[in-house]
């Protein structure tokens, strides 16, 4: 992939020195040291401010290691003793490993389909200016905010008739369809920025349209793909209604759906819900950390502008 990048960079954009590349401090004179300490101080302050900002998240994290009685006695205080029992119970109750694996499968395949299918459609929609393409674009935009419960009845009927109930493939198709509008929207605005000369050069070299798209255009869209998939993977991962409505076999259920199923409807028990939810997002968090390098490298090396 990265070798593609270097050959396809738009010739008019010189390799940019990116804002904020580390400044090398060479001298040792006083003002500079003072400036450096001030800088350090500000940086530390920034980290502290960020931690305060996500305080409610940290509170959740902390609460998940506490006992019910401990939380009830002093919800905001520091824990007196930490326990892993909440997690042990959660892992068993929500069938953690299998349900997390199900969610990973669904998320990965949905993301793949959403980015490939969406970017393909966006390509002609961005390039061709005709009344038809504008109309088609509008049609996709219409779906940006369809509340899923408006279509869930007719959709269920359809999925049943296609014999896709209780099937992972069916779920991937639904997620793909639901997220295509945002995918088309993103890619369309991005393709508009890619100079058309690139494709013309490729066409002269004898590349077919599909090959041109997948060897030249698609790799260029890595930054927007990164942004899109961060958004879409969250949507798919955290969705409760789709798996709960369209799956029957509990063995296929996702980790968030299981976490929700086990929540008591009359009361919120932090010791039960918090660990389940945190365990639920853990794999996604790991995926993000891995994925983020990709996204950032894509953003910086392929910066098309």
């Amino acid at each position, binding site marked *: 992939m990265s070798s593609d990048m270097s050959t396809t960079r738009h010739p008019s954009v010189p390799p940019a020195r*990116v804002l904020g590349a580390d400044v090398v401090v060479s001298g040792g004179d006083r003002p500079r040291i003072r400036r450096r300490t001030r800088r350090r101080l500000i940086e530390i302050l920034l980290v502290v401010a960020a931690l305060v900002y996500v305080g409610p998240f940290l509170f959740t994290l902390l609460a998940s290691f506490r006992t019910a009685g401990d939380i009830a006695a002093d919800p905001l205080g520091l824990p007196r003793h930490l326990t892993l029992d909440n997690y042990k119970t959660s892992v068993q109750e929500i069938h953690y490993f299998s349900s997390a694996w199900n969610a990973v499968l669904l998320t990965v395949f949905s993301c793949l389909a959403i980015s490939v299918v969406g970017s393909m459609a966006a390509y002609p929609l961005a390039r061709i200016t005709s009344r038809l393409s504008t109309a088609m674009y509008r049609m996709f935009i219409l779906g940006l905010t369809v509340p899923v419960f408006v279509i869930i009845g*007719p959709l269920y009927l359809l999925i049943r008739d296609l014999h896709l109930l209780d099937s992972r493939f069916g779920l991937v198709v639904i997620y793909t369809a639901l997220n295509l*509008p945002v995918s088309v929207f993103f890619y369309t605005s991005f393709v508009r920025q890619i100079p058309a000369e690139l494709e013309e050069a490729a066409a002269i070299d004898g590349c077919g349209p599909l090959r041109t798209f997948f060897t030249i255009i698609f790799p260029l869209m890595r930054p927007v793909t990164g942004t899109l998939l961060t958004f879409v993977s969250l949507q798919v991962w955290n969705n409760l209604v789709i798996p709960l409505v369209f799956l029957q076999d509990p063995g296929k259920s996702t980790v968030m759906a299981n976490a*929700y199923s086990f929540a008591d409807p009359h009361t919120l028990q932090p010791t039960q819900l918090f660990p389940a939810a945190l365990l639920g*997002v853990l794999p996604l968090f790991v995926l993000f950390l891995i994925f983020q390098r990709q996204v950032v490298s894509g953003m910086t090396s392929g910066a098309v502008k």
Partner: protein
Amino acid sequence: MLQRSRRTWVLFLLPATAIYGTFILYPLVRGVLLSFTDNTGGPSSNFVGTEQYRKLFDDPQVVDALKHTVLYAAVVLVVQTGLGLLAASILARRPRVRRVVSNILLLPALISPVMASFIWSYLYRPDGGINAFLGDIGLGRLQQVWLGDPSIALFAVAAVNIWMFVGYSCVIFLAGYAGIPQDALDAAAIDGANGWQRFRGIEWPMLAPALTVNVTLSLIGTLGVFDFPFVLTGGGPMGSTSTLTMLIYRDIFTRTDFGQGAAAAVVLLVLVLVVSSAAGSLLRRRERAI
């Protein structure tokens, strides 16, 4: 290349159109058609023309919900994007902590809206964490019954939404910053531009694509917002946080008034179409202007 071949054109559009048309448009049209009937579930329904729409706009609750939805979207859009931009512009100049701070800020976006709402309803209670924190830092007079005061509940709900996604907005702006060539900033520095002038003259216009992404994502999230008010307030107090989606949900599931729910859904779709088209063309003009 594309102009030359209609077949290629079709090939590229076919998968998306087939999936989207089958699984979204078709069920959507079936749902929307109900808005011209008096269907209340089951097979029986009579054509009633635009009666449902008339009923809809006669209902003060619907008009209120429409107002709440637009206000909510506007507040989240401005504050979330503003804070995200502020954080990004600070972090862009501080590479050493950029990565770690943006990762910390991204944490809330990972938990689901339902979870975030549960956490915050815990913190918002009158004797909860927020008021305790305000008391501790000497701002006791700012203490509120956050979710119980009809004049501030909508903003309290919006704040949870903003809290969740500011980090996300910041990361998108940071990606935009990464695309700004240092030469441009250097040139401005030589011209003697100060921080604000550099931001206004160079960074802000060059962040146009990142702004487009942020605005779009927050419009999608807010016009169709459901989970936050559903869990935090159930639309109260006194209906002050009921949004269009909450009404649609209530019509379809607790009242099984499919006709009315479908009509409200059509209003939402039109709202989204109008707002996102307007925002889209506005933002694109900005992008082109650079």
